[in-house]
Each structure stands twice: as structure tokens, then as C-alpha cells.
């Protein structure tokens, strides 16, 4: 976390690991898709002091370093509204998996910020797919509350990737929430309101909280403290919920806790209650590919969900399923919504909307000045070798905060070692390294 580090005296080792300075660069001859929903335009993107300085038809300023895109697509860096980047290296290896802490006595106060590993190999892999910022989220594992997620940037050679600690609180409703609450949905809101009540008591009198504490409270003091930020709206609640009726139930929380801010995660049946979600002004993070009734709470799943929600006026960001790779495949997910829009009877997004749903919209939901190519936004820029939403395409250059990123990862090193096009040596491949 930036502010935490800033308070320390930096030793020589820490200085050596400081990130490279932002460069000023003009990316010319670009097919600029700004991520704002606007149609692509030809032009130049100028990045200065780590931020987007201008986007337009002008030439590069004299003396500024130029990257000629030669007509290629240029987009903002992609923003994952939900991931577990940096907190899990290998899902099935528990020592490297910090996505949950099932045996901990704590829940809402769990915090991923200091658990993020900037050297986690999935970060570089994801960066090579155009991802520059991501929410990284704990999974509820012992209660409705999963703890506090963070927003990270995917910079190479940066010892501290967390740009926003405690950016949201994970809350599970629906089938998972029912399991953690005691086995049925009828316990979910009892549990939730009891916990929120404790948080309100703590907020009223933090110093006296322990004296007036209800004897049958199931919440620890630190969890109560963490939930104060949720009910007072300083930390949004990212609520995992899919069934239409569970979504409607979640929206009623706004009546009891008017300052609370919510983000719906999943919302597989959101399209059935799209108008209510829109009226509540609650954003949604959904996964386009999820079109099966994988659980009883997602019976009405369809790849039209995002399109129907957007048509109803809901703010929609796209996320990846995330169970087969650590690296979210956001562009491919966005591509599904465009394809779906071309099917009779279905609903989808335009290319511009789909790109916005993996750039500016998730940035807005997470409260980031990023995910768009407009003056003042973070200098996160990606140059692509094709249409960014095609699975055949890949970035050729990635900038984060104006810093050009290395186009290497542990995977590219494995690739280079075993590339059949590479020169053969008489020694085993283990002697071959590219750096």
C-alpha cells in the first residue's frame, strides 16, 4: 500500500526495487478505442507524467519519444472488476493460496492488502493479455463476509501493487450465504442484520463498545469495526448473488442502510429484475460465458444477461469465470457479448460498450481514474496486434502509469525454452534462459 510504504525510511534494497519512472510518450497512428463507449478514432495518444495528457488528431510534440502504432488498435489497459490476482499462485497448493482463511475466527476484517504478492506469476501473464488494474478479492469461507478486497495495478518490478486497500467488502448471499449463515436462506438476513447492528453499535461508541456489547453477538470486535465502513458507505459491499429473488432481497438493504453502497457480483438472473437494479442505481459485475443453470440459483443464466441489463440502464462490468486460470480472460468475455448481440432473439453489447465494460465501467465501479483514454486518466495504455476482443489478438506494448512494461512472463520463458523454432543445443533445455 502506497501510504504505508511512504511512511517508512527506504533502505538501499527498497530503492533498488523502486519502479521505473514514467516516460513521456506519444503513440501515433493509433486506432484509438477510448474505452468510454465512443467509436474508435484515428489519432495520437500522448502520455505525460504517468497520465493521459491528450487524445486527438495532433502530431507528437517535438522531442517526445514516439511509438508508431501503424494503425493498430490502442485501448486503455483492461480493468478486472473481480479477480484473485496476487493472492493465489496455484489454486490447489494451499500454502500459496491466500484467497480465504476458513479457520480464522475473523471474517469481515480479513484483508488481502498485505497478502498481495507482487511477484506472483499470474500478474505478468495477465499483463500480457492487456490487464493493467484489477480488484483482487477474498472468498467468503467461514461467514457471509469474506473480508476486504483491494485494487492492484499490474506493474512489473514494483514492490507494492496495491493502489486501493480495503476497496470493497465481499458478502455472499444466495446458496453460499445460506450455507455460511447456518444452512438456509432464512438465516441469511438474520445474520446480516445482527452483524450490521453490531457495527452500528461500534460506530456509535467505539471506546465503549465492549461494555455495551450484546452477550450473544457472533461478531468479533474487529469484524464489527470493518463493517462500519460498509454500512456508512465508505467501503462498497461486493455482494455475490445470482437468483432474481435473492437480488431483490439484497436491494432491500438500501432501505435499512441508506448510505450503504452495493456492487452485485454474478447476478446471473439479473436480467429478470433489471429494472429494479437500474432503479436502485446498483452496478453489476457479471460473467458473460456463464449460460448454464450451474446452480439452482442461476437457472435463467444466459449470455444475454449483460446486454439486457445495459439496455435497462444498469452499469455493467464484465468478469471472467476464473476457475481454470489465475489470469482473467476479460477480452474474450467481452467478445461473447458482441457475438450474442448478433443472434436473433438475444441481447448483447456493441463493440464499444463491450470494451467499456472491461475498462472504464469497472474503473468507475472501483473508484479509479483509469480505464479510459481521456486527458487526466491514469497512463495505462495497450497497443494490440488486432481487434482487442478477438482471442487471436494480443498486446504488443503495455504501459502502466506511463511506464512501459516488459513483455515477458514465466510463461514466455517456458515458451522460449521449448520453442521448436529455437536453435538446438547439445545441452538439456534447462541450460537455456532468455534473461
Amino acid at each position: 500500500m502506497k501510504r504505508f510504504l511512504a511512511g517508512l525510511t527506504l533502505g538501499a534494497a527498497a530503492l533498488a526495487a523502486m519502479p521505473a519512472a514514467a516516460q513521456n510518450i506519444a503513440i501515433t497512428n493509433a486506432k484509438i478505442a477510448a474505452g468510454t463507449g465512443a467509436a474508435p478514432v484515428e489519432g495520437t495518444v500522448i502520455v505525460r507524467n504517468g497520465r493521459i495528457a491528450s487524445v486527438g488528431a495532433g502530431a507528437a510534440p517535438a522531442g517526445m519519444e514516439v511509438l508508431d502504432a501503424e494503425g493498430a488498435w490502442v485501448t486503455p489497459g483492461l480493468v478486472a472488476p473481480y479477480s484473485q490476482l496476487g493472492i493465489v499462485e496455484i489454486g490447489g497448493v494451499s500454502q500459496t493460496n491466500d484467497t480465504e482463511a476458513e479457520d480464522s475466527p475473523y471474517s469481515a476484517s480479513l484483508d488481502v492488502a498485505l497478502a498481495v504478492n507482487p511477484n506472483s506469476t499470474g500478474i505478468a501473464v495477465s499483463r500480457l493479455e492487456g490487464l493493467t488494474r484489477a480488484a483482487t478479492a477474498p472468498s467468503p469461507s467461514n461467514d457471509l463476509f469474506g473480508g476486504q478486497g483491494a485494487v492492484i495495478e499490474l506493474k512489473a518490478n514494483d514492490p507494492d501493487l496495491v493502489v486501493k486497500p480495503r476497496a470493497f467488502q465481499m458478502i455472499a448471499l444466495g446458496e453460499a450465504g445460506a450455507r455460511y449463515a447456518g444452512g438456509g436462506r432464512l438465516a441469511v438476513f438474520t445474520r446480516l442484520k445482527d452483524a450490521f447492528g453490531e457495527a452500528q453499535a461500534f460506530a456509535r461508541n467505539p471506546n465503549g463498545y465492549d461494555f455495551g456489547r450484546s452477550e450473544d453477538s457472533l461478531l468479533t470486535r474487529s469484524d464489527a469495526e470493518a463493517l462500519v465502513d460498509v454500512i456508512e458507505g465508505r467501503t462498497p459491499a461486493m455482494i455475490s448473488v445470482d437468483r432474481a429473488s435473492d437480488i431483490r432481497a439484497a436491494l432491500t438493504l438500501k432501505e435499512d442502510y441508506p448510505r450503504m453502497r452495493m456492487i452485485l457480483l454474478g447476478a446471473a438472473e439479473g436480467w429478470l429484475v433489471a429494472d429494479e437494479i437500474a432503479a436502485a442505481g446498483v452496478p453489476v459485475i457479471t460473467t458473460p460465458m456463464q449460460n448454464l443453470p450451474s446452480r439452482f440459483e442461476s437457472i435463467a443464466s444466459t449470455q444475454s444477461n449483460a446486454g439486457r441489463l445495459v439496455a435497462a440502464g444498469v452499469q455493467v462490468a464484465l468478469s471472467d469465470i476464473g476457475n481454470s486460470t489465475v489470469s482473467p480472460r476479460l477480452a474474450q468475455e467481452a467478445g461473447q457479448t458482441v457475438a450474442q448481440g448478433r443472434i436473433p432473439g438475444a441481447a448483447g453489447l456493441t463493440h464499444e460498450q463491450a470494451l467499456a465494460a472491461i475498462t472504464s465501467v469497472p474503473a468507475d465501479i472501483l473508484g479509479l481514474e483509469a480505464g479510459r483514454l481521456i486527458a487526466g486518466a491514469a497512463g495505462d495504455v495497450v497497443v494490440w496486434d488486432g481487434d482487442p476482443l478477438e482471442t487471436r489478438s494480443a498486446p504488443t506494448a503495455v504501459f502502466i502509469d506511463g511506464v512501459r512494461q516488459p513483455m515477458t512472463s514465466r510463461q514466455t520463458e517456458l515458451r522460449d525454452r521449448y520453442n521448436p523454432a529455437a536453435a538446438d543445443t547439445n545441452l538439456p533445455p534447462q541450460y537455456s534462459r532468455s534473461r
Partner: protein
Amino acid sequence: MRNFLAAAAALALGACATASADSPRTASDSSASSESVPTIDRNPYPSTYRPYGSVPTLITNANIYDGAGNALMGGQVLMQDGKIAAIGQSVDAPADATRIDAAGKWVTPGVIDVHSHLGNYASPGVAALSDGNEISGPVTAEVHAEHGIWAQDPGFLRALAAGVTTLHVLPGSANLFGGRGVTLRNVPSTTVQGMKFPGAKYSLKMACGENPKRVYGSRGRMPSSRMGNFALYRMTWQKAVEYDRKWDRWDEKVEDGTAKAKDMPTRDLQMDTLRGVLDGDILLEQHCYRADEMAFILDMAKEFGYHVAAFHHAVEAYKIAPMLAEANTCAAMWADWWGFKMESYDGIGENIPFVEAAGGCAITHSDDDLGIQRLNQETAKAMADGNRAGLSIQPETAWTWIGENAAKAIGLEDEIGSLEVGKRADVVLWNGEPLSVYARPEQVWIDGALMFDVNRPELRPVSDFELGQPGEGDVK
């Protein structure tokens, strides 16, 4: 996305297994014995699938990837009597043939997925429908995936809308010997027999590595290590070799008429499956991630005298691609799955194209109810990664990964996988270039019968499960 680990564990287990349905081995049936001896029905659950109604259909102006490595722009395909009757720039067609102008559209053979658990791990994913692993012992070669398939899994119909016309359903990978896999026609059906691919071989699904040793080691049973995995493989294969010898002697006696009923060997269903592999009647499909383990598996196949049809997942196939080509063993792979377990840590996007470049039999597989709906996109992803690494793989070559190579891995290269004259008319008409993320099937034919049409809701089947539920009949 809710439960990262649980999902990873589930699909890790999901990965694995196969065998064939209508096994041709019937030596014991054709008895010439003077004494009546018992016979064994080698095909007790026969396919009842029959092609649905087809009319002669000519597709014109089509851009074609034929699944055998060829592209044809603006060509024609004629389907007649359920078969590919002609393909070329211009072909002769009966006057009464239905004509489809495919200008701006593309035609490919039906997509094949060699690794699916549809029906065995159905949607909804409740415990009551979890039937893909017989986790009661590490050697369960006697179980059949088909007996655990729920034909009403909505996943079949999603896959149909995505152009999948044939799939091989395997038991999971909890066990060393998981059981028999089965090849299905992807037609809506009330029974599994109504989907079984007539004459297709069963497979035997075996599993390497982490899953068996974890599942049984955690119960204090063998195997608890990779050493134990191999020991138990070999002990079991040795039994199978002896069983095979005993039954070969019996079959000879039946042949020459000297068999006596009292001498008939005891039948062992587990060993029957392994014997089928030794005799080439059942295909061996091996779940295996790591290069070093795959090399041992190939040695073991030589030790006991069988052939490995394909490695499944084969995340490190790229490290031993020439060895796989030499062994004539296919590798069925994901485009980009990695990191969900230790043995998948070295996954790279170039795995499939590197196997292709070594002259091997490369296949894009899904192992997933969502992945099966976009095997074209996954193929495109892998092709592009390979080309960025310096290869020059053409789209028509890449399509063999879900075309003829996939057919070969399940022993059906003479029937499906490409648009060659005489093969089954499994055909997909796409609304755009089919490696594009934006392409979707418009029409899907199986054996020449139109089974899906995106423009005709009445040709969008709905599983029994989804009837009367929110979203019934929706475009999914």
C-alpha cells in the same frame, strides 16, 4: 467465481477417462463348439441412435475449413442420405436439393470434443447429479461413464448451439483406472442409448498424478504417491495380461469346438475392460499433465503391450512433443488453462501449436461445460500464440485440432472430423469466420439432419430440466 478452490478441485477431478460402446469383440459369441457353452454379450447397452430425417442439401458460396487441413473459398458442399456426397468449388446436386446460399458465411465439419463430462457432472451441479467419479477405489475399470450420464443435462444443448456434434464423455480422474468412456452424437434424447455413436469404441480412462494420490492418500490407502500410482497401474495391468491369456485360451477352445462349459473362466468386468485395451478394442485415454509422467506412461504401455490413444490435458506436451509424435499418441489440450494445481503450473499458450509443429496429433479439448461452447475460440487463441512464437499455422490447419485429429483420438477418423465424401454429414454453417470470437453457428446438421437453426426457435431444443423454469426457451 465464488469458490475458486472448490471449482478448481472439481474440474481437476473432472479431468479424465474413456472407452467405447459397441465393442466389436465377440469371439465368445461365435461358438463352433459341439457342446453348448455360455456366451457373453459384448454390447449389452447398444446404441439406439438413428439419424433424424434429412433432405438433400446443397450449401453454396461457402468459405470452408474442411477439418482435414484444407480451406476452400466460395465452395459447395452437398449432403445427401446423411453423408457428405460432394465437396468442391462447384458440385452436381439433385434438382430437388434444398439450396442454402452461404455468401459471407462459413462451413466446417461439426465440432468434436474428445473430453467432456456433460451428463456425468451435469448442470445444476448438485451432489445428486454428481456421477463422474466412482471414488470408492482407485481401480474401477468396470464402471461405465454412460451409466452415470443424465441425458437432460442442459449442457448438451448449449454445446449443440455451439456446433458440437460429437463428444466423448469420460469418467473423472479421481481413480487410476476410472472406467469406460463413451462417444455420443450430440442429439437431444431421453435415453443415453439414443445418443450413443453407433459402432464407436469405448475408451478406458486412466489418470496420472495428483488426483489419484490425493484422493486415496488422504484416506490412508494406496496410492498416496506417484510411486504408488505406477505400482498399482502395473499390478493391475499384470493381472490383465494373465486374464487376457486365460480368455484367449478359452476363445481358442470355443473356436475349435473343444470348449466345455465347466472350463469357462470366471468373468471379471474390471479385467474385461483392460483386456479390451490389450486387444485394441478399447481406446486408452490417459489424463496426464506432466512431461516426465507421460514419458513413463508410454514406457508402461510398451511394457504391457497396449497403445495410448491420447494424453488428455497434457499441459506439458510441448516439452516432449517429438516423443508424442513418435508414439503416435495424440495430445488433447486446453488453449490456456494453467496454475489451478501444481501439475498445471507450466501451462503455456503455445502448447497446442508446439505439438502441431512437431508433427503430432494436436487436439483442442474442453473438459468443461462452458469451454465446450467455444472450442473454435480456444483453437484460434492457441493458433495465434503459436504464430506469434514464430510458427505459421493456417486457420485450416488449426481446425484439424477440433476436426480430424479429434476424430482420430476417439477412433472415428473414418466417419467424422472432416468434410470428406462418404463421411457422416456433420456440418456447421457459421455466421462469420469461425475462428472469430464473434462467430456463432447458424445451422447445425448431424448425419445430414438439421438439428439446430438459430433463426428457428422450434429448432432450439429445451431439456426437460429447463421446462417450466425462468428463461425456458431463451437464447442462451
